[in-house]
């Protein structure tokens, strides 16, 4: 499985679109970090956290879109071109095929994140108290986890559709729902139904990108005040460590469930 993952990773990373996405994200992250640093400094806040907050939304959007899209395309292309069939015949299990695709795609998304955060780190390096670095690294880890969940969703999409065009369209639609759509639904229904904090927390857990965003903000601000009622409820109900653990488990489930679904689906489909 690792050999196939490495093969996928190299071929994906060399693709022109992947290179453009990685470089584009890195440049965008650097610019956002620079702008965030300058504007938040005027408010008298610390250097890393404001810049990191500015980077957070970008890091939760672009690499996850990349992971979902490439995840779907990698599996569909592998089926269309015969590569997966060739390797399956040689004895690699369906779980191995799925796991290899996910590892490779997640690796590419992480490459983009590391490049982006690396550039952001360079931008804020002169203004960073060393004590803020763990939060910055935590932010990177959380966004990497979010990218891993999006890659898993992409791989699931890739097993469910037939063609690369379908894969691209469905993966982008799925990403849009996770990135924006669910939030709009929650905002709309929340007001209409007067949903309380438990319902809002359930909505957070039902969306890996939102869970990652909350987790990242908890890492940046242990008081959870930036999260409003949901943050207060989380900390009151689970305390800080418990809330972090709950969200981490949720993200892990958002990786495991789509991959499990993809394996089950592919076991009942022709390669």
């Amino acid at each position, binding site marked *: 499985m690792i*050999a196939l993952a490495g*093969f996928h990773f*190299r071929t994906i990373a060399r693709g022109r679109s992947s290179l453009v996405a990685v470089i584009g994200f890195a440049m965008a992250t650097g610019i956002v970090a620079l702008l965030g640093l300058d504007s938040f400094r005027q408010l008298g806040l610390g250097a890393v956290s404001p810049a990191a907050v500015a980077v957070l939304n970008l890091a939760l959007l672009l690499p996850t879109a990349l992971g979902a899209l490439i995840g779907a395309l990698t599996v569909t292309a592998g089926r269309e071109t015969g590569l997966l*069939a060739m390797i399956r015949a040689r004895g690699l299990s369906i779980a191995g095929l799925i796991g290899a695709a996910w590892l490779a795609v997640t690796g590419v998304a992480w490459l983009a994140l590391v490049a982006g955060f690396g550039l952001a780190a360079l931008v804020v390096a002169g203004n960073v108290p060393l004590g803020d670095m763990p939060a910055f690294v935590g932010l990177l880890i959380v966004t990497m986890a979010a990218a891993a969940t999006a890659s898993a969703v992409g791989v699931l999409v890739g097993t469910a559709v037939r063609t690369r065009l379908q894969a691209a369209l469905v993966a982008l639609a799925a990403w849009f729902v996770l990135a924006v759509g669910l939030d709009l639904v929650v905002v709309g229904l929340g007001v209409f139904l007067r949903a309380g904090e438990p319902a809002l927390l359930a909505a957070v857990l039902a969306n890996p990108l939102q869970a990652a965003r909350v987790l990242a903000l908890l890492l940046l601000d242990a008081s959870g005040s930036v999260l409003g009622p949901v943050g207060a409820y989380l900390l009151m109900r689970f305390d800080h460590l418990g809330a972090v653990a709950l969200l981490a488990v949720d993200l892990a489930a958002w990786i495991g469930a789509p991959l499990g679904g993809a394996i089950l689906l592919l076991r009942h489909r022709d390669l």
Partner: protein
Amino acid sequence: MSAIEAPGRTMEIDLVTHAESMTGTRPRLSAHGLVKRYGERVALEASDFELPPATIAAIVGPNGSGKSTLLGCLARTVLHDGRVFLDGEPIERSAPGRVAYLPQRLRLPATATVGEVLALFRRFAGGVADRVAPPPGFVPDERRPLGQLSGGQAQRAALAATLQGRPDLVLLDEPLANLDDDARAATMALLAEHRAAGATILVASPTAVDLLAVVDRVLALRDGRIVHIGPAASFLGRLPLVIWVRLEAGTSGDDLSGLPAALRSRREGDWLALECREEDAVELLRELDARGVPAARIRIGGPEDPTRASPLDRP
């Protein structure tokens, strides 16, 4: 009797309704009750068959007859009813690397190099040394990305990757597509070496002509059913008994006129017609192969017009 269409011809052949007996030899491959349905449509409903070790079998039949589906079932990449056994054990329990499969119209990633593809499949070959090394020049430069190769070069790279290690069952779906005469001859020789080392090889092709110089058995499909299975000679015995050889420019074909298996020969433009008895057809093809005549220049068909015979490539 049932019918199978070869390009330009329709041949009557025996319908096989039971497993072929391989008395005295434990079958390498056994297939029982293979059925593949796409919704209501039955794509494959193959009668039981067995193949012994060290055999090359051609799967022939017109487009849509179920050749690729049958290979996919054997490769475990197509879901199906029925069972497949490799050396008496369910094929799904066979050790990794024992089955090698080259799908039709394979397109490996353009950004991967030849060397990376070979290295990948070496990992999945079960960690054993190659049984047979491809001839020099067969594998393109390992540093070149597949996207920069011609169709024939990419096909050679894919063949080399497929045949790595020591596969006991090799499943090839139209492996000669895109190959020039030399590459076809090299591929045939490669397959013959794998057979000599004990491998059982199934090769799907729209026609048997391009394979008959090396195949031992022919399995003919029509509408998803096996309509003939048996020695290549018995399949050939049902074909018209003129073997046409397209002559190279500037050659007379005199060196081919006196082949022992040929009854008589005649020249028709660029073509040399070799007539033979049914039972001598395989021998004649092997004699042509021994004289270096590539399969691409050979057709088997009607006595009056080589362009209506079973083709490889129409002039």
